[in-house]
């Protein structure tokens, strides 16, 4: 019973950190919130391993810790330092409205999805399944509502975390190469987006993607 509560608590904390990644104005703080969320993801893998004796998730937690708790945040912090940017640009709808919109719509969509997912999930833990959909949607809304390229990279990381959690809950028994393939893609996507962010900053003098209006029609 205690383990079940622990998993639920971690799931709620993950939702809280996804809100923090989305809302925090300072890039550095957002990256640290992401690192914390991924640490919680590792913790949930370990808790699920403990509860269901699923050895695959033990391996997943180790790879996720190395790649997503250590490497990706360090890489992003280095990028922030290189670019010399500190605070996010004003997002669509303003700093206050956009988190409220993202939060409410993500909650609504997660309410719909988790009911479907729970029918087919290997683990029938309600709150983690709900959290996975919520985090995924927060990432999607991050892309829609935040104009900063860096915030969009973090949004990618967010929805990737949502998918990773869904994968652990619904398909952890799949071939081990599946997780390797998906993680490799995620890492390369972050690296490539970071290179483009550097180019973007050099071209536009800002990370504000709403300035990218040269290609239309």
């Amino acid at each position, binding site marked *: 019973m205690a383990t079940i509560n622990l998993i639920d608590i971690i799931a709620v904390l993950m939702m809280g950190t996804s809100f923090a990644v989305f809302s925090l104005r300072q890039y550095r703080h957002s990256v640290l919130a992401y690192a914390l969320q991924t640490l919680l993801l590792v913790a949930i893998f370990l808790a699920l391993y403990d509860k269901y004796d699923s050895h695959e998730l033990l391996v997943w937690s180790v790879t996720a810790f190395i790649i997503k708790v250590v490497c990706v945040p360090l890489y992003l912090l280095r990028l922030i330092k290189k670019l010399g940017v500190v605070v996010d640009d004003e997002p669509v709808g303003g700093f206050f409205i956009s988190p409220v919109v993202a939060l409410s719509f993500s909650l609504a969509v997660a309410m719909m999805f988790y009911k479907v997912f729970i*029918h*087919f999930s290997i683990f029938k833990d309600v709150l983690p399944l709900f959290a996975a959909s919520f985090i995924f949607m927060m*990432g999607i809304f991050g892309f829609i509502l935040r104009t900063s390229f860096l915030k969009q990279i973090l949004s990618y990381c967010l929805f990737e975390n949502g998918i990773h959690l869904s994968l652990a809950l619904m398909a952890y028994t*799949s071939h081990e190469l*599946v997780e390797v393939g998906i993680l490799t893609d995620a890492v390369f996507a972050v690296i490539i987006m970071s290179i483009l962010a550097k*180019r*973007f900053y050099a071209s536009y003098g800002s990370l504000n993607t709403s300035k*990218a209006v040269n290609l239309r029609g």
Partner: protein
Amino acid sequence: MDLLLLILTVPFAFGVIMFLMPLHFKFLQTFHILLSVIVSSLLLCAVGKVVNKEVLSLFHDFIFLDSMGAIFLSLIAITGLLANVYATTYMKWELEGGHISLREVKNYFALSFIFTWTMSLSVLCNNIAFMWAAIEATTLASVFLVAVHNDKKSTESGYKYIVLCSIGLAFALYATILLYSAANGKIDGEAMLYTNLLANAASLDPMALKLVFIFALIGFGTKAGLAPTHTWLPDVHAEGPAPTSALLSGVLLKCAMLGLIRYYAVVANGVGFDFVETVMVVSGTLTLFVSAFFLIRQHNVKRMFAYHSIAHMGVIAFGLGVGGAIGLFAALFHCAAHSFTKALAFCSTGNIARIYGTKDMTKMGNMIRIAPLTAVLFGIAICSLVGVPGFAIFVSEFLIFKAAAIDGKYILMGIFAVALAIIFIADFSHFFLASFGKVEGKVEHNGEMKLSENLPLIALAVLIVSFGIWQFDSFTFLLDQSVKTILKQ
């Protein structure tokens, strides 16, 4: 060594080797062509084995090549080779024009092998999650084939490409996870393998399959350029170098469409064909009319062809929607016909941009006198794109009409005819604008390209006409087998 293993290693190895080569253009050019020929030969060998009814699989069916995969692998081999050969000419011009550095050319050649590797992997994966990973990897491998320059437009196109495709494909990953969890424990064998899922589709939960297909359509549809998530495509295809656009439009879109067709097959056999056909007709119709609307307004030759790519993805979706053996045959045939046609169209824009120094068709004219061969090749691409009889695309569009007529779907026939008519009018008005009349802008290269430079384009034109007037038995065999697999006959 196993042929599939060679296909999975050689293009990647060639990409790495190319990165290490010295900065000497003549050498890089020859080496690139040589390695491209080797890669394409390997791919065609594998296709040949499937034509000879051999079953190719690796790692306990994790990797496999079926007849449907063989069709798309042959596109990677043929269209990919010709676009890569043309790339050496195009890059020579870019280098001479001072638009690109030799190091960037080398990186471009190297990345094109990595790109070919990821596309081949996406076609060969039987594991649906790994297939997803490979399709996502195609985006990552091709970002810097699009954004080759450091300017604003190039960066913007790269940004839109990776961001929009990654968001879209995330939904496809959810479809994959949901399909696996719906099948896990309910079917015999590994629930992540497409072949197992297809064989046991009838025992899967119908509601789950419907949701899976909607997610897959959003995900792979975004990558394939289906409306309304097509918005990245015009910017990316118009902004990249001509051979990149040829590869993206001619091959990459088809790889994403293959992913969608595999889901189409599983879901159709699980919930019945009516559901998937209805969804695909709606998607195809929307895509056709959205692209036709934007096509009329285009004066940028590459943007025009980019909207054409969207339109023809709509045709493929429409063919899948009309369904039946003939509709499916037509949709798969259209993948090949459009691949050759669009590769020729985009490669000819490389010639045109060299002649006029612009992509704006209102500043062109008199191409028939300045560069008659390029004008003819451009004309062949246009004729095929609008479905003139005797050219490849006519065959598939005619078969879609036939499939609809046999099933008595006359309203669909009408919708399809109206969309094609709009595209027809828009295209020929643009073609005449560029090819005849007075030049409104300036002519930077007053003359035809060398014959050797035009050879890949001529080969593509020959393929377009051949597929329009001739029936290739081995290719028809692959199409028939694929249709039987989807229909489980």
